[in-house]
């Protein structure tokens, strides 16, 4: 499946911690380890948007990776 656009609300749910998933893609996990805490400490719209942009970019630029494909199925069904 292709990477859903940034405005899909699930991206924001992930970076704000409203939804959690068991992910496989290591770069996303390391990134989320930082940004979820940043957003949690200061959940401004700008911080959420920035975190979503970073997370979306990591998935989009690695769209061919098997672990990315598995994560997208887990997150978006």
């Amino acid at each position, binding site marked *: 499946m292709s990477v859903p656009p940034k405005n899909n609300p699930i991206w924001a749910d992930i970076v704000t911690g409203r939804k959690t998933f068991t992910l496989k893609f*290591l*770069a996303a*996990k*390391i990134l989320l380890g*930082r940004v979820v805490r940043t957003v949690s400490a200061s959940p401004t719209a700008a911080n959420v948007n920035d975190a979503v942009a970073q997370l979306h970019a*990591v998935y989009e630029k690695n769209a061919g990776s098997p672990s990315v494909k598995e994560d997208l199925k887990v997150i978006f069904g």
Partner: protein
Amino acid sequence: MQQNTFSIAEVEKAIKDGRTLLIAGEEALLQALPQGKWVGGTIPYFVSPDKGGEVNKEQVFVTDISEVAASITVGVYTQDTLGKVYTDEDGCGFSFIIVPAASEVHASFAVNGPNYKDFGSRPLIGWVSGVHLDDLGKVTPKVFDGITGKSFEQEAVVMHVMLPAGKSVDVGIINLFEQGEGDVLTFATDGFAATEVMVNGVKENFADYITKNNLDTKLPLVADYYGAMVNISFQSVEPGGEVKLYAPVFSGIRYKHAQAVSNYGEAFSDQLKKNSPDANSVAFSCNCILNYLYSGLEGNKTDPFVGPVTFGEIAYQLLNQTLVYLEVHDN
């Protein structure tokens, strides 16, 4: 994928045949190699397919990635330029990095790597070069750019690899440690050393805290990065003074001392069995010198993983006491 120890004569032939190689070995051996499509780093410790863990000063450990390298470029990066590692060579499939231990670029990458522009936009995997433990403080770890044949002590060498059509790669880690049930530890600043720690939010002297609680410093601090356990290993504890670490702690990240393992070697073997990917898909792997020492890996195998035993592992960022690997898949 071919990964094994080879004589200099054998590697010289492979380089002259145009193979694309990742090489680990003693400095004098790497210096003797001809120019070609390779990068290397110094270390005499390997886990080889035949002998398992070994100290080998007569041969080098070679990972031949020719099958997954349609083309390559090699870059040498200073601490000021390494921030471009994800943005250089647009379209490359993955980047392989070797950083000399205790260098400026090592310290800089460890602290700043997670904030590099376009972090994670391509797989970044590699290791920190070192020396025989008897030579600590006497010999400086090096990295080699095989294209020019030059070696470096303060710079990182990166091979940017373009994949053939129909291939993709993934980076994985194997870590036997999990967070224990103890205190939450946080730090006010990023760095390889800390004098003070916040224990459940209350400031204490870090060394005194370790001594008072009789923490086993063979067990690392562990941070939970969205389910990925990331270790920070202890280097030294000066009573009442500084605690030195093999990777930086970061402010804002919550650490816990690792859960104790009853038998380090068995726990590591269990993790290998639980997490091992398809052996045929593993193109490269390396393991930490602390795992080698504490697990007693000399003479023991870690199938399907072989490779250099390193002073730090890199899977997007610097890791400790962790096995990292690169998998190649057919799309």
